[in-house]
């Protein structure tokens, strides 16, 4: 397998413009891998060929729409007081669905806290993701059931878990690969850089998938780096690729290539999905304090869903009934999420003591007994 070098990507750069000057910013980046233009034109890329059946394209469209709907529903539920917080993925659907759909069943994803679209592709029940934001648990699902790890809030910590897991795959002689998700802000963390080192020297089958959504809360990518992020990889000795993160086909093709590259024993790959966070960082954030609205407007024109819809319509791959059926399905999903969240029971307070340890621990046992007795005293009316 050929190694995709950053040199090739650089070759495509506009002549005379130093890379460092085009590192960030919001203008279209010449070196982006793109397979679908914002106008819905399908283009070929010599290094990342992708053949798609009409069924596959429709399925990707369905994913994008449903994931966006789920996200919008969660944002609304937060506004209604049903969730304590929500980290919206609005605008990043293509990066997540493209990379998520590139995974095989045995592959494993290690998300941050915004990878709702990847969870969707891993077939994790969306309601599972909401427990943490509602405050009924700190994760709650069995990561090994769908090979989708728990959300990690400490920035970048999960990239090491992903790398260790990938090292285990190598030891098992298995044919699987791992994706570690993180943001442009996280790329500054020590853990991410340690993960790059471990993955590189142990040839671990891990794909580092950085969603550069241009912002880390209020800090632009220029606060994190002076070179394009994908080029970090070369310093660690593995390939880095920048892909149009709003182009689901390019994200699919590049991630599929990277996963295969990793699983064939060639070591890690860094993918920088160049995208944009259309909403606030979380529902607690106020982007009007730091972000010009023209910037957000400019990115609207690159919306991942409209461009795929444009392709489907232009090529006559989907009729009006198809779009209507997705709309109906999206209504159903919204309903299920709303009802599911509102009827989500609070856990029994003794949850505090459950699973602190895998094996018995005298202090926990003692404190649980104390709590149970204390709580019972209210029921018995002793403390009234």
């Amino acid at each position, binding site marked *: 397998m050929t190694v995709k070098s950053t040199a090739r990507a650089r070759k495509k750069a506009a002549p005379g413009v130093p890379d460092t000057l085009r590192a960030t910013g919001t203008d279209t980046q010449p070196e982006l891998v793109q397979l679908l233009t914002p106008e819905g034109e399908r283009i070929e890329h010599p290094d990342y060929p992708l053949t798609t059946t009409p069924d596959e394209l429709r399925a990707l469209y369905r994913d994008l729409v449903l994931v966006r709907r789920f996200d919008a529903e969660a944002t609304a539920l937060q506004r209604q007081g049903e969730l304590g917080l929500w980290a919206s993925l609005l605008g990043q659907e293509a990066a997540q669905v493209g990379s998520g759909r590139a995974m095989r069943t045995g592959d494993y994803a290690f998300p941050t806290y915004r990878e709702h679209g990847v969870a969707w592709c891993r077939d994790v029940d969306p309601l599972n993701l909401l427990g943490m934001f509602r405050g009924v648990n*700190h994760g709650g699902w069995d990561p*090994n059931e769908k090979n989708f790890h*728990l959300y990690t809030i400490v920035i970048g910590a999960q990239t*090491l878990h992903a*790398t*260790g897991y990938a090292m285990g795959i190598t030891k098992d002689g298995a044919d699987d690969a791992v994706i570690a998700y993180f943001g442009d802000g996280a790329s500054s963390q020590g853990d991410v850089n340690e993960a790059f080192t*471990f993955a590189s020297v142990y040839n671990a089958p891990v794909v580092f998938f950085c969603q550069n959504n241009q912002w880390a809360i209020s800090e632009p990518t220029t606060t994190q780096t002076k070179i394009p992020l994908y080029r970090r990889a070369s310093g660690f000795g593995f390939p880095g690729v920048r892909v149009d993160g709003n182009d689901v086909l390019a994200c699919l093709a590049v991630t599929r290539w990277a996963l295969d590259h990793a699983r064939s024993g060639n070591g890690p790959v860094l993918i920088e999905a160049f995208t944009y966070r259309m909403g606030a960082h979380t529902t607690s954030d106020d982007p009007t304090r730091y972000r010009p609205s023209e910037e957000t407007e400019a990115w609207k024109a690159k919306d991942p869903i409209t461009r795929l819809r444009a392709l489907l319509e232009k090529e006559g791959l989907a009729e009006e009934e198809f779009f209507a059926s997705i709309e109906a399905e999206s209504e159903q999903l919204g309903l299920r999420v709303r009802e599911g969240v509102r009827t989500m029971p609070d856990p029994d307070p003794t949850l505090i003591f459950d699973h602190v340890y*895998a094996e018995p*621990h005298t*202090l926990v046992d003692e404190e649980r007994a104390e709590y149970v007795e204390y709580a019972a005293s209210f029921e018995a009316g002793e403390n009234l």
Partner: protein
Amino acid sequence: MAAQLSIAKALNEALRKSLENDPKTLLMGEDIGKLGGVFRITDGLQKDFGDSRVIDSPLAESGIVGTAIGLALRGYRPVVEIQFDGFVYPAFDQIVSQLAKMHARALGHVKMPVTIRIPYAGGIGAVEHHSESHEAYFAHTAGLRVVSPSSAHDAHWMLRQAIESDDPVIFLEPKRRYWDKGEVGDAADLGLYDARIVRPGTDATLIAYGPMVKVCLEAAAAAEEDGRRLEVVDLRSLSPVDFAALEESVKRTGRGIVVHEAPVFLGMGAELAARLTERCFYHLEAPILRVGGYHAPYPPSRVEEAFLPDLDRVLDAVDRALAY
């Protein structure tokens, strides 16, 4: 086994047995391969088990612990070595926020059988960052288990028990005792979390762990010359604590003195004193006293003797306790 071994060798044998018994057990750390670790605790293991099971890692403590978490998720049982106590802090987040909580966050669906071995505490004349006692940070964190052996027998069997545990265990090795020899029996005679009465007595209970057990035994021997019979309890486990054993002893002697190297303020001794006071109040002849380090950075080695509790400081506390 029933052999006379140094603590270092007893640990080495424990790692060897653990590697033999379970193909999923792995060792990771800096310089643990060819060199056998800076204290030679892993001596010869890479030669016998190969470099995919005894792994020299990059120099990145967060990376060592973070990847161990990933390996545990994949079904491995990593045993990692932190080269010296003061170098564990870069891994603090991975230990207290990630490793300690993973089992609970997954509602019990995943286990974290990771053992973190740390040569800790002072007394060897080392430079800065090579003599720290950080047990309270870890014992304070729910989800972690913290243990520290003081004899060759316990070093061997406690390490094997720690590696077999499905919970993360911080395994604190008293580095200044590495070369002390003792008999290693052929079976664990106690559970990993049980305290041990290492010297029975009637007048006061000295409670210690790790490097301070020896100091307390010396103090008890010296006190005997003055006709004082001191009981010495080796705590062995700092989380959980075997309070039943401590309570029994302190109720019997009426006096308790906790001795550790770590600074006294908010240390293990504070917790032990508070709980024992609650539990033994009507049996106590004196407040539970504490002997330990000062609220100061671990000092340069030329003055570390002044910082570390020694026989005289322990005996001084005994005098104070008996004077009530």
